[in-house]
């Protein structure tokens, strides 16, 4: 063994490799409160109304479309033999996938001690909740007679029947409802200290009352923080297997079947990676404009954008591995149906869907290997939208191409969506953006107390935290 006991010399990192601080320009605690809280105070700016009114109109259209569908029947959708799962399930999986980035940021990155998450987790969690709301609409309506939806739950009924738990669709019911509930709890729990911030700043009685009510009388007591942090850690620890299980269970809807292109063992991790990928796409799509409009460049820095691009790259590449494995194993298995299915993906009538899928999900994120793309906000914004489009097409490819040509050529068909499908989908954006804009208006979009905890002043042992005893920073210098 190399003898090595003498005092060590630690080099100062070269300038180009220094880490940028998480909050730029060394702002104070108070600045963070002011900056974030002020977004919810005062009159709503013009741009907010410009976005809010169309969103509400879109939401109205959604309600109209849903009413039309419920009163008429699922025949108003394009679903037709042999493609009985169409845009409804595509959009369900797409929306729920988007939600996953929020939980990844709030829970998994918390467990991984990724401090940068504090600047983006609140907005991402809000995105999760609203995306799951959009997703939940589809299966509830897809059953056809939505007034029987309660049969999905284990509730006693006059037929003395019980739900059938061997069906993956039942697992979905439990997964999605648990996901929504736990995400909401987690989000609310994170909000408690920040609601107290808003309470203490409130000028009007109404705000004081409402923020006071929902902040539960939070005082910032360290005895409370101690339990709070433990509970937060535990919720993060519970949400991590939850987020993995939700999209795994969604993937089981497909993979426990025997259909080529659906039945493949890599589906659970592949779906999870894809979900996180699309979710980060959406986080970037939302946050890049917001940080400019709200002047949050010091809180959501280029370092944050850079890291999120890298996560997109990593998950996109994992998805690419899964695509490659699917093709490879279809060939390897020698199963003619499998082989036909995958050739049909690339060369069949929906070849364009496959092109979008591979192009946007595997090839486009590879641009993020280059720093220029990660640092150019316009490029990141465009690529993030392409990621969302690509992931929509992935679900399209799996569902529609999987179903439209199965084992018997007599069963083949061609699926197109109906206008109701398209308008309903656009309507869900109305719901999503209405909720998101309301969130921006009334709740702090950045986790104030968490960001305060990661700046240098927060650390009692950091010189900026007021520590008088200056330990040796670097031997060399």
């Amino acid at each position, binding site marked *: *063994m*190399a003898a*090595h*006991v003498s*005092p*060590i*010399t*630690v*080099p100062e*990192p*070269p*300038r*180009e*490799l*220094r*880490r*940028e*601080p998480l909050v*730029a320009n*060394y702002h104070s605690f108070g600045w963070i409160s002011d900056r974030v809280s002020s977004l919810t105070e005062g009159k709503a700016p013009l741009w907010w109304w410009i976005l809010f009114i169309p969103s509400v109109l879109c939401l109205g259209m959604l309600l109209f479309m849903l009413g039309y569908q419920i009163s008429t029947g699922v025949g108003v959708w394009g679903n037709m033999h042999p493609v009985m799962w169409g845009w409804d399930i595509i959009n369900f999986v797409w929306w729920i996938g988007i939600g996953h980035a929020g939980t990844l940021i709030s829970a998994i990155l918390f*467990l991984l001690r990724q401090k940068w998450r504090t600047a983006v987790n609140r907005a991402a969690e809000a995105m999760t909740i609203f995306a799951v709301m959009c997703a939940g609409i589809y299966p509830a309506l897809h059953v056809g007679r939505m007034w029987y939806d309660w049969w999905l739950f284990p509730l006693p009924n006059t037929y003395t029947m019980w739900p059938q738990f061997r069906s993956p669709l039942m697992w979905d019911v439990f997964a999605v409802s648990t996901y929504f509930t736990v995400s909401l709890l987690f989000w609310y729990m994170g909000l408690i200290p920040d609601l107290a911030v808003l309470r203490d700043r409130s000028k009007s009685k109404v705000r004081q009352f409402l923020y006071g009510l929902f902040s539960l009388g939070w005082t910032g007591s360290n005895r409370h923080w101690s339990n709070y942090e433990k509970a937060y850690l535990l919720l993060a620890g519970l949400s991590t*297997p939850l987020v*993995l299980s939700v999209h*795994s269970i969604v993937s*089981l809807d497909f*993979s*426990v*079947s025997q259909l080529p292109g659906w039945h*493949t*063992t*890599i*589906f*659970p*991790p592949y779906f999870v990676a894809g979900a996180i990928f699309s979710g980060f796409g959406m986080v970037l799509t939302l946050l*890049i404009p917001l*940080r*400019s409009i709200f*002047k949050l*460049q*010091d809180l959501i*820095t*280029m370092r944050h954008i850079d890291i999120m691009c890298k996560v997109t790259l990593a998950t996109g*590449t994992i998805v690419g*591995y899964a695509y490659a*494995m*699917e093709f490879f*194993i279809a060939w*390897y*298995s*020698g*199963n003619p149906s499998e082989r036909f299915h995958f050739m049909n993906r690339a060369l069949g009538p929906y070849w364009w869907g496959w092109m979008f899928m591979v192009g946007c999900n595997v090839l486009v994120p590879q641009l993020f290997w280059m720093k220029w793309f990660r*640092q150019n*906000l316009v490029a990141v914004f465009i690529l993030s939208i392409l990621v969302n489009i690509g992931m929509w097409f992935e679900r399209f490819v799996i569902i529609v191409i999987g179903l439209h040509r199965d084992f018997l050529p007599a069963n083949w068909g061609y699926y197109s969506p109906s206008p109701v499908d398209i308008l309903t989908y656009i309507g869900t954006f109305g719901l999503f953006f209405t909720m998101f804009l309301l969130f921006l208006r009334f709740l702090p979009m950045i986790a104030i107390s968490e960001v305060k905890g990661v700046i*240098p002043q927060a650390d009692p042992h*950091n*010189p*900026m935290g007021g520590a008088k005893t200056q330990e*040796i*920073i*670097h031997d060399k210098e």
Partner: protein
Amino acid sequence: MNRSSAHLPLNLAKYRNVPNILMAVGGALAALGFFVNREQFAFSWLLAFMFFLSLGLGALFLVLVHHLFDAAWSVPIRRISEQLSTILFPTMALLFLPIAFLAPQVYPWMREPHPELDHALHAKYPLFTMSGFYVTSALCFLIWWWLSSNLRGWSLKQDQTGGALPTYKLRRYSCVGIILFAVTLTLGAVMWMKALMHEWFSTMYGVYYFAGSVWMTLATVYVITMVLDRQKVLSNILHANQYYYIGSLLFAFTVFYAYIHFSQYFIIWNANMPEETFWYLAREKGSWFYVGIVIIFGHFFIPFLGLLRIDVKSVFPYMLAICVWAWLMHFVDLSFNIMPILHPQGFVLHWLDLGCWAFMTGLVATVFLKKFAAHPPYPLKDPRLSEALGLYHAMPDSFSAADLSPQHGRQGGK
């Protein structure tokens, strides 16, 4: 933490001969087996080979992700992984030679007199031909050689020169490397293990081998770090949090492996198609069923519950037991994959299993110790070392990164 309790450097001199003894005894047993029971020898060798391949590949993965994530905490232990990954070439490549020679005795598909009549085999043309097998194997080792030697080489170069250039180089290698790594690990797992039952297919198999490999590598790295710490080789630069992080990763991979294996089993169980279920049915025959149960409990539940508490991740005797257990379980898991071909009636712990494994343990340990002793025990001038030691504070005075970065704070119309 316990780490301060060891005052004197741990002296392992009396165990210095253990690797040699393992090599000698194991080598003798293996050589004997080669003449006495060649088929068993080939399978036992393959089992031991796949076991240590796990270690090399797992270590390579740890190095790759360290650079890709621009991590700081793992700088003090990176040299261990770097040195471990270089066993892939030439050590593992040489250890592959017996498999290369005895391949027809191991892989049933190679014994097929008319490959064109076996559809599952014919469909895999040209990958599943003798030349396909050798070309793929050679390709894997070449890529691992290129990656592991360059990743170690540039890291060693940084020990001399310091500076940012080696860091950038290492990142470049890791970018290309992670993709090559994914492809070659999958090919290795498919060609050398899954091909034992070539009719069977599962898209998850590469991930499955990967999950187990990284799991046992983390256990290994934990123990090596602990020993080096007690020998006062790394004690200057280690904090309690390195143990905590490796322990947490070990925990994470315990769950990840279970997730992967459960998913694979569950999907096959549910779809219930004979072309897939036969692989698991063969592993439910005789005592293999109980091996499966041992894997469920031993590979998942015991380490899962054992690692759940935060504080145990830095209790050395406890963690040592868990890490040894992880080795045992990985061995059982690979045995579950490989051995039902040779012993379809049930699990057999043959003396050759132990012999081949002992030989490779001794050899790999010797090679690793020699390499490790020849170079500094940690990356001396890595730019992230000061951060790993908790000495790096981003400061607003003098020349902070904030003043230097042109993008900083000015992007987006500020």
